[in-house]
């Protein structure tokens, strides 16, 4: 029997991570994410897991990566300023192909900004924050229930593709309490990283399997000896200046996400079939957007709703098809225009794009989005 709980978003996310098999958490407190660390601090020792509060966010993600290298499913969680601090070591995890999950409970920025207010200003940082190119997988949950489920999915993707996976939550979602139907243990698929099966003497740490172009990962302490480095390296993990080896490695970091794009991309739609306007919204904003869309429908307007669940990879082809049919897309966001750029890129000028920005620490009211829909419909 599935259990019913009444949880806060952050707590739900932490429980989802535990259900995914997360047994290592390294972090540093920051509002509005701290409840994730606090839940992990309480639960992990009882599960023979490991929790450590480090001296800053840089060390928090470093310890998390270390935990993963030693074979644990590992997570760190933070918000704005802490997310900025984590960027360099995120890059190491991309380069060294270490699976971890990073949660950013978005608050207003720049700088210390608005510690206790919602924003969606880090979504491009999620994609481009760490220097250098890499494929990005980032989820944006929009309900407390989804915080739980996405935590599991994020771990599955991290373990499968051997890379950081981001959960871009937000302050409202993190602190909101809602009903959660906790799926029965074993009812959701759990992915564990692929381990080498060869003799340790034959292990080539970054040699991808032919079948999926992904290398299996050994853990320190499991009898395999290998080298990890943030330097661009060849299949032996050895730093290289050889153009061919560099090209191969860098392309594979991108290909992991692009080649499996269809396995990763997730989105949700409502009333899109005959829509003349599509509202594209994510995270907490999707909640107000959906209620505005439903009200507009009641008022007789042909409006649809599209919610990217993965911000990265972005459901670009799906939006393009719907937008072309509809003619107009409305993108409400709690920033001065970030994912709207991606929507524009996806649409290739085949539909009009209307941007809605709100940067005052608050969430859109459904009435504001409804008003805009009516304006656009005219």
């Amino acid at each position, binding site marked *: 029997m599935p259990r019913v709980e009444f949880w806060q978003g952050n707590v739900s996310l932490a429980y989802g991570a535990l259900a995914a098999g997360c047994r290592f958490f390294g972090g540093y407190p920051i509002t509005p994410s701290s409840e994730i660390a606090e839940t992990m601090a309480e639960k992990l020792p009882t599960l023979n897991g490991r929790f450590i509060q480090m001296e800053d966010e840089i060390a928090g993600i470093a310890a998390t990566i270390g935990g993963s290298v*030693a074979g644990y499913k590992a997570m760190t969680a933070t918000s704005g300023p802490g997310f900025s601090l984590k960027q360099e070591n995120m890059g190491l995890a991309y380069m060294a192909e270490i699976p971890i999950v990073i949660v950013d409970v978005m608050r207003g920025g720049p700088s210390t900004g608005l510690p206790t207010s919602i924003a969606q200003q880090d979504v491009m940082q999620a994609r481009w924050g760490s220097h250098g190119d890499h494929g990005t997988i980032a989820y944006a949950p929009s309900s407390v229930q989804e915080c739980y489920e996405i935590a599991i999915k994020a771990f599955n993707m991290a373990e499968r593709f051997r890379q950081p996976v981001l959960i871009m939550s937000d302050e409202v979602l993190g602190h909101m309490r809602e009903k959660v139907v906790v799926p029965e243990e074993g009812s959701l698929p759990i992915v564990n990283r692929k381990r080498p099966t060869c003799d340790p003497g034959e292990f080539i740490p970054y040699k991808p399997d032919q079948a999926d172009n992904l290398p299996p990962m050994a853990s320190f302490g499991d009898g395999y000896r290998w080298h990890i480095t943030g330097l661009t390296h060849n299949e032996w993990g050895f730093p290289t200046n050889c153009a061919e080896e560099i090209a191969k490695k860098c392309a594979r970091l991108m290909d992991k996400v692009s080649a499996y794009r269809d396995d990763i991309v997730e989105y949700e739609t409502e009333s899109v079939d005959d829509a003349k306007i599509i509202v594209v919204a994510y995270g907490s904003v999707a909640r107000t957007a959906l209620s505005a869309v439903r009200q507009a429908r009641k008022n007789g307007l042909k409006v649809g709703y599209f919610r990217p669940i993965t911000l990265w990879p972005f459901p670009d082809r799906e939006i393009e098809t719907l937008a072309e049919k509809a003619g107009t897309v409305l993108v409400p966001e709690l920033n001065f225009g970030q994912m709207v750029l991606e929507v524009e890129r996806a649409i290739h000028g085949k539909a009009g794009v209307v941007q809605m920005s709100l940067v005052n620490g608050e969430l859109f009211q459904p009435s504001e989005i409804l008003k805009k829909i009516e304006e656009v419909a005219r």
Partner: protein
Amino acid sequence: MPRPEVLDWLRNKFFPHMWCPGCGHGIIMHAILRALVASGKTKEETVIASGIGCSSRMPGYIDACTMHTTHGRSLGFATGIKLARPELTIVDVMGDGDCTAIGGNHFIHACRRNIGITAVVMNNNIYGMTGGQASPTTPLGAKATTAPFGVIDPPFDVCKLAQGAGATYVARATIAQPLLCEQYIKNGIANKGFSVVEIISSCHTQFGRRNNRRTPLDNLNYLKGASVPLVKAEGMAPEELEGKIVTGEFVKREGTEYTDLYLELIARVGGDRV
């Protein structure tokens, strides 16, 4: 010539190494390997972590579980690995810049936690890799590319820093004393908690050439002349110790190791029954 059982720890595939001929860091690598062999460690249970710098390139050359991370942050990674698998032996090698500048915060916190890691600080008093900029251990008055008129920033004493922050084993030797280096690293590994072994290295390429120690030999001779064993130093006046390198074991004490405490906590809350 290294003994065969020591040579066996080298990752021949990764050679030739990138160090300048005569760089002090190679002497330290040899001492670490001898200490590991003498401690009876296996390559599979040994982790060598590092940050970024000439010194930090060492793990690549060692055929163990090795991790070359980001500048100054290696102790964060090493802490994660140790907490996850307390049974592993972890040696974290770092340059003076790596340890005391960008990584200073991680360093003092690792000392404070007394986590079972041996930090080998390869102090050549300069940023070697990036071309001879001043580090927090560059002596007053010495020339560096970012201190062309001589350093005015007072330097850190790595051992005092470690002692003050709570490390349970703290020692210093120079590359002119390779056997002492080996002994101290071995003692550091044997200590259950956080150990700091500062080894005064040399960088003739970036430090020496601007400070009248152009050749590797000049540096070794300087180190021989400047070092004073702790027992002797204890009877010397502060003025006499000016510019000297005091070598010896400064801290050797009992202290509960961090992962022991954590495993105890797990047992207390019933996590060991999972």
